[in-house]
């Protein structure tokens, strides 16, 4: 049976914990002088990115290479799609070359599911529209779990997720993952940038929550939102929702500061993050490779579904 990673909801708590545990092994590989293992020799991973992305694509490509998989990059702009070939024909053509996994980013929500209907390869969602970005959620969870040394879970952890929730697949996936691990998430956002229906805690000013949090997760404020008149202007956004020098002073020493990148300095991040004691933004990027290796290994390297039993032939089942 082909397995895929499409969303945190489909992964579930057990799968989420399994991937975080495997990430520990990948982190150990990445600490070595020669950070490469032969685990996925002979497997081919194809990156299909219909939206611009530097860090996610490079992160997936690095992850695949460190597991000794071969990688193919499909540049949409130079492809036959621009000659009018349908997406389905393109995918089936690439699949016929022998691909074990597709990593797809697409502006339309649900595109990875559609792709999964057309191919027997595993499909990994690297971001679809406003909907989901499960590997971002995984790397966020892994970063918090290692920074706080809490492998058992995040029960009672107070998280403020700040910014444009409505248009953010990161907010959706990362909130889901935080809640699966037991954390309490508050969305801090202008009312115009909240999804129409939800059951999350909400605050409309960062000052209301900043004294009572353990994690401050800042989202990227996109300039398009201004032209859509969802936010009056960037300065007002920063005044109510940005991490300003005044707010940085109030921030507890223990509070982790996170950002999925790319960061808008002077907007959501109005201080130098390097000066914040809880800054883990670079760890997020590093951990992205760890968790993506875990995802690829779990999908392509594990022979069957979700067996957590002892598996070495030298050991009896417990």
């Amino acid at each position: 049976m082909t397995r895929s990673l499409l969303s945190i909801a489909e992964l579930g708590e057990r799968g989420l914990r399994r991937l975080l545990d495997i990430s520990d092994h990948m982190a150990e590989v990445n600490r070595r002088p020669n950070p490469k293992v032969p685990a996925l020799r002979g497997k081919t991973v194809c990156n299909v990115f219909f939206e611009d992305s530097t860090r996610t694509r490079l992160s997936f490509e690095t992850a695949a290479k460190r597991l000794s998989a071969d990688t193919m990059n499909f540049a949409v702009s130079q492809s036959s799609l621009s000659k009018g070939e349908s997406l389905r024909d393109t995918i089936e053509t690439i699949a016929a070359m022998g691909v074990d996994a597709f990593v797809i980013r697409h502006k339309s929500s649900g595109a990875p599911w559609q792709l999964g209907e057309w191919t027997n390869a595993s499909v990994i969602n690297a971001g679809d529209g406003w909907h989901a970005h499960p590997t971002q959620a995984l790397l966020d969870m892994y970063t918090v779990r290692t920074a706080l040394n809490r492998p058992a879970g995040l029960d009672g952890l107070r998280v403020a997720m700040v910014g444009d929730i409505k248009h953010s697949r990161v907010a959706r996936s990362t909130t889901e993952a935080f809640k699966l691990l037991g954390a309490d998430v508050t969305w801090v956002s202008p009312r115009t940038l909240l999804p129409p229906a939800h059951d999350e805690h909400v605050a409309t000013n960062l000052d209301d929550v900043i004294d009572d949090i353990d994690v401050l997760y800042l989202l990227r404020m996109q300039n398009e939102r201004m032209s859509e008149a969802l936010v009056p202007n960037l300065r007002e956004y920063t005044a109510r929702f940005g991490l300003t020098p005044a707010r940085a002073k109030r921030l507890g020493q223990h509070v982790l500061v996170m950002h999925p990148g790319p960061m808008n300095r002077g907007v959501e991040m109005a201080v130098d993050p390097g000066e914040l004691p809880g800054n883990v933004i670079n760890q997020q990027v590093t951990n992205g490779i760890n968790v993506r290796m875990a995802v690829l290994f779990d999908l392509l390297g594990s022979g069957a579904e979700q067996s957590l039993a002892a598996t070495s032939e030298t050991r009896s089942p417990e």
Partner: protein
Amino acid sequence: MNTPAETGKQVGKQILGPDDVRRAITRMAHEIIERNRGTADVALVGIQTGGVWVAEALAAEIDRIDVEADPVVVGSVDASLYRDDIGLRPVSPGSVSDLTFTVDGITVVLVDDVLYTGRTVRAALDAIGDYGRPEAVQLAAIVDRGHRELPIRPDFVGKNLPTSADENVSVTTDGVTIS
């Protein structure tokens, strides 16, 4: 003592008791010291997951025997990313490899609880090779149950235990059980 004909019960048949396992570890500790003329340039590396406690028990025993020497170095290695059957069956890594010392130029004693096909050892050898180039690698196992599929042999064995391929061998401090 180990006739498989008596098996068939769900509980399994005890081959070695706790004292036998303890004595086997003591003997193997002596052999490791003797073979390497002390343990100054020796590291014990348990194969995840079953070999880890054995390596620790051997190290404790070596330190008890060789009181004047520095404590022997102990680590562990997870070989699951080096297996040759990846994709053929479920893989769930044990604990993370713990090799914080350099393996260059030392003698690594790989330690496992049960030696069977040799494929785990082969994978562990590859894993060790990614950390450096040991002077030599030796192999210790509490139980050698036969059925090797690769040209691998142990240097230190607690007990040779003839088994059939459909049997399971379990090794703990409480003893060795076959089922």
